[in-house]
C-alpha cells in the first residue's frame, strides 16, 4: 500500500518530531486554532439557540441566517479576510467561526424546541421561573442533541483549520500545503493522517463528554 508506506515514512522520520516545524508544535497550533474558533462559535451559537429555542420565536430568521452562513465558502472567506486584514489570527478565526455557528445554532434551537411539552408544562405549573425551566428542565433533555451539534461543528473546524496554512499560518495544514508545493507526498499523507486522527479524537472526546454530561434518563440508545 502506497499510502501506508508514506505514513510510515513520515512518522518514523525523527526530523518531523521536534523543532518549529515538528509535529508537536504544529499539532498544538492546530488544536489552538480549533479551540478558539469553537469557543467563539459556542459563545455565539449556544445562548442564541437556547433563547430562541425556549421562546420558540425567531425560528425563520434563524433558518435564514444559518442558510446564508452556510452558503459562504470558508476557503474564499479565508483568502478574502487575508487580503483585507493581512496575516494574523483574525483572518483565520472569521471563516472558522462562520463555519461553526450554523450547526451549533440550529441544533441547539431544534433541541430545545423539540423537548417534550408535558414536562415543560409541568415545570411551569409548579411555578418554576422561565430561566429555571430552561436550565433545569429543557437543557438536560436537549443536551444529547446540543452535543451532536457541537460535535459536528468541532469536526468541521478541525478539518477546515488546515486551510489556514494556505495563507501562511501554521497548523497541521502546513504539512499538506508544503508537501504539495514540494511534491513531497510523504509529508502530505502524514499531515492528512494527523488531521484525520485529530478529528477522530475530537469525535471520541465529544462522545465521552456527552456520556459524562447527559443524565442517564434522557440518554438515547
Amino acid at each position, binding site marked *: 500500500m*502506497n*499510502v501506508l508506506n508514506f505514513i510510515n515514512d513520515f512518522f518514523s522520520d525523527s526530523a518531523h518530531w521536534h523543532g518549529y516545524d515538528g509535529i508537536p508544535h504544529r499539532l498544538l497550533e492546530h488544536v489552538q486554532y480549533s479551540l478558539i474558533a469553537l469557543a467563539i462559535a459556542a459563545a455565539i451559537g449556544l445562548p442564541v439557540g437556547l433563547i430562541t429555542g*425556549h*421562546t*420558540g*420565536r425567531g*425560528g*425563520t430568521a*434563524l*433558518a435564514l441566517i444559518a*442558510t*446564508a452562513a*452556510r*452558503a*459562504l*465558502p*470558508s*476557503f*474564499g*472567506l479565508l*483568502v*478574502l479576510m*487575508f*487580503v*483585507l486584514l493581512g496575516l494574523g489570527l483574525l483572518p483565520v478565526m472569521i471563516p472558522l467561526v462562520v463555519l461553526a455557528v450554523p450547526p451549533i445554532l440550529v441544533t441547539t434551537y*431544534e433541541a430545545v*424546541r*423539540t423537548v417534550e*411539552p*408535558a414536562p*415543560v408544562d409541568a415545570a411551569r405549573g409548579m411555578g418554576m421561573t422561565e430561566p429555571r425551566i430552561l436550565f433545569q428542565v429543557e437543557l438536560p433533555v436537549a443536551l444529547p442533541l446540543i452535543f451532536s451539534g457541537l460535535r459536528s461543528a468541532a*469536526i468541521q473546524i*478541525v*478539518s*477546515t483549520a*488546515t*486551510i489556514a496554512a*494556505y*495563507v501562511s499560518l501554521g497548523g497541521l*495544514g502546513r504539512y*499538506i*500545503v508544503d*508537501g*504539495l508545493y514540494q511534491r513531497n*507526498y510523504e509529508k*502530505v*499523507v502524514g*499531515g*492528512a493522517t494527523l*488531521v*484525520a486522527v485529530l*478529528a*477522530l479524537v475530537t*469525535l471520541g472526546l465529544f462522545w465521552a463528554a456527552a456520556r459524562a454530561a447527559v443524565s442517564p434518563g434522557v440518554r*438515547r*440508545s
Partner: protein
Amino acid sequence: MNGFFDIPSDLQHSWLGLIGLHLREALIPVLAGLVLALPIGQLCVRLRWLYPPVLWVTTVLYAVPSLAFFVVLIDYTGQSETTVMIPLAVYSLVVLVPAIVDGVRSVPQETLAAATAMGFGPVRRYLQVQLPIAVPALIAGLRIATVSSISLVSVGTLIGNQGALGNLLADAMFYHRTALAVNSVVTTAVLAIVIDALLVLLRKVLTPWAPPSSGGTRTARRGGRRRLPGRPAQEQTVRPEPAAPAVQGAAPVKDTAR
C-alpha cells in the same frame, strides 16, 4: 464596480464560464453521491445491522479534511477535476445516506401495510410510497450536500487550476486584487443560495400535499411558548422514531439467536 467582472487572463474563462465550471464541479459529485446513497440507504433500511457501521465509515471519511483528500488523490487521478469531485461525492454521501434512511424509516408502518394490501410489489412500494414520503428528508439532505459542495469546490484551487470560482482567490492573492476575492466569495455564496432555493422549490413541487410552511420555515407557526403537541413537524417526529424501533427490532433477533 468597474472591471469587477474582469477576470485575469490566466484563468482563460469569463465570469460566466467560471460559474458554469463551478456548477459542474459541484453538482456532478452531489448527483453521484445521490445515485450511490439511494441503494446504500435502502440497504441500511432493510438490514438494520448495516446502518451503524455505514454511519461510522462515513463519519470517518468526513473527518478527512478536503484539502488532504484532494492532495492524496493527486497520486491516483492527477491534477484533474476528478480529483476534486471524488471527495465532494464522498462528503455528500455522508449527508445523504442518513437523510435517506431517516426519510424512508419515517414512513408509517400502516401506510406500508396499506400499500401491500393494495397489491403493491416491493419495487412499486418503494418507488411510489416510500420514496415520495421520504422526499422532504431527502431534499433537506440534498440542500446541505449541495451548499457545502459548492463552497468546497474552491479548495480545489490548491491543487492547480481546478477550483473554478476559487481560482479567483489565488489570483486575488497573487495580484493583490481584493475585488477578485470579493467577487469569488459573493458569487459562490449567491450561487449556493440560489441552488438552495431551487431545491426548496423542488420539494414544494414534489410534495404538493405538504402544508405550505413545512421544512425550513415550519417553525414560524409555533409562535408563543406553548408547544402544540398536536401537530408535530415532520422532521421532528422522524428523529426519535428510528431509535425506538431499532432497539425493539434488535431485541427479538437476539432472542431467536440464543
